[in-house]
């Protein structure tokens, strides 16, 4: 859609699209479709050669005399969702829950990657310091506390975004191999961490209690 608006202003456009039916429907003047994991329009992180190939194929469409032009990149990148290999540090504090201990345990990894990147996407409603307490509050929701009374630092979706992003940024630092295909780290968070289970349990408790759909549904990806 944005392509049409920029063309109308006199700027030539070429779009990278991850969803072929949508690209066909939108019919932007020039589109390179790549069957890549959603969230990765250039296909592969940390692979400049592959990214340059995508861009070169996209720019080649600028030679077309008329449009719409829609071509597909020959490489398909499967989203296998196999959890990334990511060992969690052991934690030793008998007073806290396993999820809270786990969150505290990955703090150093979180700090290291953000020192290196110079930025974090945690911060929608709290910073990293607030994560352990927010997890405790989700645990109370999972145990039956109405979500409005749990004292969350923000909307449920914002809280879950910040917790998940805290974990995922740390996981990029902690993973022992490549970060994997799309959703590999998402799978790690929801399938293998204590806190991922707490998020899903709180979400289910809210759904069972009749909380408004958007308040619980968007706490996690739709297929979960």
């Amino acid at each position, binding site marked *: 859609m944005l392509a049409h608006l920029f*063309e109308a202003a006199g700027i030539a456009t*070429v779009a990278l699209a991850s969803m072929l039916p949508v690209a066909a429907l*939108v019919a932007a003047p020039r589109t390179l479709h790549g069957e890549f994991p959603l*969230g990765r329009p250039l296909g592969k992180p940390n692979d400049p050669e592959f990214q340059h190939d995508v861009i070169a194929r996209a720019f080649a469409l600028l030679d077309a005399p008329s449009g719409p032009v829609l071509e597909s990149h020959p490489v398909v990148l499967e989203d296998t969702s196999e959890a990334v290999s990511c060992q969690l540090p052991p934690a030793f504090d008998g007073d806290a829950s396993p999820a809270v201990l786990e969150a505290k345990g990955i703090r150093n990894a979180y700090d290291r990657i953000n020192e290196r990147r110079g930025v974090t996407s945690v911060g929608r409603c709290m910073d990293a310091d607030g994560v352990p307490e927010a997890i405790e509050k989700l645990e109370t929701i999972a145990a039956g506390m109405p979500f409005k009374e749990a004292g969350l630092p923000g909307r449920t979706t914002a809280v879950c975004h910040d917790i998940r992003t805290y974990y995922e940024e740390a996981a990029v630092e902690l993973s022992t191999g490549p970060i994997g295909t*799309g959703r590999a780290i*998402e799978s790690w968070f929801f399938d293998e961490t204590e806190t991922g289970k707490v998020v899903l349990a709180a979400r289910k408790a809210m759904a069972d209690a009749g909380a408004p759909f958007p308040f619980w549904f968007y706490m996690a990806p739709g297929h979960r």
Partner: protein
Amino acid sequence: MSGDTPMRSHAATLPAPEFPHPAFVTPVPLAQAKVAIVTSAALHRANDEAFTEGDTGYRLVPREARDLVLGHWSPNFDRAGFTADLNVVFPIDRLEELAEQGVIGSVAERHISFAGNQPDDLATIIHDSGPAAAAELKADGVDIVLLTPV
């Protein structure tokens, strides 16, 4: 099951706004063109205004900025790729390399970021913020936009 599969199925059922008379601009040769990125990943600088849910506005991303927050509200796509390498969403370093090699003319000084998940209000983008963003790039002398939807 892959998490992307249901998202692809769902997206295929959504309507798209129609442009009955779409423009088609023939650009200057690539080696002379100034190129900008327009993404819908809701990227913004850490000290810039964050995107709200359903935000129909846009943020300008300076060419040199690398402190970019992924402000997209949807939980339904991979974010770790961006954390590992922002170029997988916003290929600014690749454009810089292409400019050095002379493949493209130059890299724009300012790039544009919108929020991709728009549940209700496309009209504001179509009639207001979209044209406004395009006008900013036009004023900067941008010839070609590379769109990276998320």
